């Protein structure tokens, strides 16, 4: 949190104000990273959370020293580092960032400073039967969004019939592996070995699925700065500085001397090797890239629509019950339901989703879609119930008294007179809520549900631009929400006609 405050101030320009008045070259090297990923890359120092540690922190210092500057950290979420660097929030991104064909095409990556292997991690009980991707046919394999591993898994979906599951961080894939929500995790050996040391019951398979590299990432316009940094990295490879840093963090292995020898000899190093056809979309034309991603965007839109419709249906049913309880219930029922409504409205929906999916996992192990559906429905039920309660209370007392004098029971008054009239009053705000839910459903990507916004983010990351994916995503959302609004208007008009 402290780091985020520092970063926010940094982005707002507070530290920059002290140096921006001078025309001299910048004295600071702003480097972007995500401490959420943790050690050994970047993490808050356990002894002093206001300071950062990790091998990327030390490499940032090494690069800054080479340029005669002072390193200054900028917090950026892992999946947004490229875009953040491109828009000049930072000079370089360093956080276990992978070298990819896309990054080479649209940005300025440094030479690699570390070679990693993509490896599979499985539960101990599956070690003998789940050795390669081909063994995972019909099974779920998790990884981190926006990584080479995710691209590999997407290819394997078509080739082996596996199901790729993407996460926002590298901790929950392994937790879900242990819980049985996924059957394997494909990530680089640095992350896999770290989790294996921290968790029991999981094994890292010895086979290598692919070989990749960590690089620093700079904006496409910063070619000169990149060359200066490359010189610093080569010098650190020659004098052993890099080796010392990597040994200190326990990630040095025999792959690194071979990598450094190739780089110092001026030999080309491909971004990825060991897997056929794993390329980004940046080498394609934008039209080709769009055509390639469109089916997955439409599939994700289907998930969004299905999730939103089911969640809303459930929220409406629960909302009606809650509203009825608050209007007709005993004091205890009213108090309990009021507490529920305030709890759901007063806490972030993201927190509720995390609690339902991860917090309750020990007691109820809901699948991701079911957890997302439950979370959205429970949250929106609170808002719906308030709409229905106010609509019920807005029905004139005279209508209720007229119904009672005719001999209708209180239940019949509710279902035949008060409810139908209240529902007409609630229709417009309900429609608003449905459109809001359609958009809020993007939050469930944190539970590994691949909905439209998440799929767009993957598209944008691989394309290296948000323009086409963003416009396409907006168009699909509009294509879903505008007919909904139109249908609601038609329904309102229809309900104004006589009931024969």
């Amino acid at each position, binding site marked *: 949190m402290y780091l985020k405050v520092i970063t926010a101030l940094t982005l707002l320009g507070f530290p920059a104000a002290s140096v921006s008045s001078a025309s001299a070259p910048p004295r600071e090297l702003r480097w972007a990273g995500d401490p959420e990923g943790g050690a050994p890359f970047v993490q808050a120092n356990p002894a002093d959370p206001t300071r950062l540690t990790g091998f990327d922190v030390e490499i940032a210092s090494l690069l800054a020293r080479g340029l005669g500057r002072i390193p200054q950290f900028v917090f950026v979420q892992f999946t947004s580092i490229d875009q953040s660097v491109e828009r000049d929030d930072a000079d370089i991104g360093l956080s276990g960032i992978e070298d990819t064909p896309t990054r080479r095409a649209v940005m300025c990556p440094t030479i690699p400073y570390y070679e990693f292997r993509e490896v599979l991690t499985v539960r101990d009980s599956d070690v003998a039967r789940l050795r390669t991707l081909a063994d995972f046919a019909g099974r779920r394999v998790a990884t981190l969004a926006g990584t080479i591993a995710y691209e590999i898994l997407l290819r394997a979906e078509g080739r082996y019939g596996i199901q790729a599951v993407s996460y926002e961080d590298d901790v929950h894939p392994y937790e879900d592996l242990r819980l049985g929500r996924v059957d394997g995790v494909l990530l680089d050996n640095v992350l896999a070995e770290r989790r294996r040391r921290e968790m029991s019951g999981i094994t890292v398979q010895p086979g290598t699925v692919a070989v990749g590299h960590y690089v620093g990432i700079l904006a496409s316009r910063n070619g000169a700065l990149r060359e200066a940094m490359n010189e610093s990295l080569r010098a650190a490879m020659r004098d052993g500085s890099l080796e010392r840093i990597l040994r200190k963090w326990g990630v040095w292995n025999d792959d690194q001397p071979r990598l450094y020898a190739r780089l110092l000899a001026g030999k080309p190093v491909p971004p990825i090797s060991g897997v056929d056809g794993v390329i980004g979309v940046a080498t394609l034309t934008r039209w080709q890239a769009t055509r390639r991603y469109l089916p997955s965007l439409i599939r994700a839109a289907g998930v969004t629509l299905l999730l939103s419709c089911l969640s809303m249906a459930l929220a409406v049913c629960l909302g009606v019950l809650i509203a009825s309880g608050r209007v007709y219930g005993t004091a205890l029922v009213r108090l309990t339901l009021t507490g529920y409504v305030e709890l759901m409205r007063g806490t972030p929906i993201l927190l509720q989703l995390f609690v339902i999916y991860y917090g309750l996992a020990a007691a109820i192990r809901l699948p991701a879609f079911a957890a997302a559906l439950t979370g959205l429905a429970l949250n929106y039920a609170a808002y719906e119930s308030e709409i229905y309660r106010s609509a019920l209370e807005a029905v*004139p007392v005279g*209508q209720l008294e007229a119904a009672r*004098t*005719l*001999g*209708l029971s209180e239940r019949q008054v509710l279902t035949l007179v008060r409810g139908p*009239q209240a529902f007409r009053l609630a229709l417009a705000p309900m429609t608003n809520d449905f459109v809001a839910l359609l958009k809020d459903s993007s939050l469930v990507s944190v539970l590994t549900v691949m909905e439209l916004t998440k799929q767009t983010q993957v598209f944008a990351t691989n394309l290296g631009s948000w323009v086409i994916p963003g416009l396409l995503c907006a168009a699909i959302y509009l294509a879903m929400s505008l007919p909904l609004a139109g249908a609601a208007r038609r329904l309102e008009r229809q309900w104004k006609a006589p009931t024969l």
Partner: protein
Amino acid sequence: MEGADTVSAPVLEVRDVHVCRGARRILNGVSFVVSKGGLVALMGPSGSGKTTMLRAIAALERFDEGLIIVDGLMLEGGRAIHGELLRQLRRRVGLVFQFHHLFEHLSALKNITLAPIHAHGTAVDDAATRALELLRSLGIEQRAHALPRELSGGEAQRVAIARALAVEPPILMMDEPTASLDPARRTELGELLRRLATGDRAILVSTHDEEFAREFATDILRLDDLQGQ
């Protein structure tokens, strides 16, 4: 009581009814009788408690003391009315509110058939047939499928009367029925009520319209005269 020259079996008896709201005494020992076949006007100035009296008879308001007997069904002051007693009362008393309170989401026909079908178990077709008969007798059969907001004030009032009569209560009460009617419509209403107040049915109308009461009522009860008797 003026003009109470026709003696018939009482369908409504109010005995020494008191209604208080906080320190305010609204009805102070009101007593009167309404007999079958009568068209009775309950008169008094605005705020004298006419509407409260009707609401107490319909069990929409609590009364603190006294007794109300509706077609043999006894309601005691200060006691909650619910369950079977309330159900039986609803079958005996029809009430047409001053502002009608037709159900806004239902057509005129469905307003009338709602209670017979759902509260009294009448078959849908039978209820619809009876509703159309009522609308025909009230001269507005052609408005059966109109929504309340599409009806004129007079038409809405007739639909409200038909709705109250659909369960065939022995007593029909109307609250200030002439309040928003022009003279021609008022006369039409008076003649209609005369036709309806026959046989086993009585009509009790709260009004401050002296002319209407003198012209059409069989009995006129002045609320001020009924207190404390």
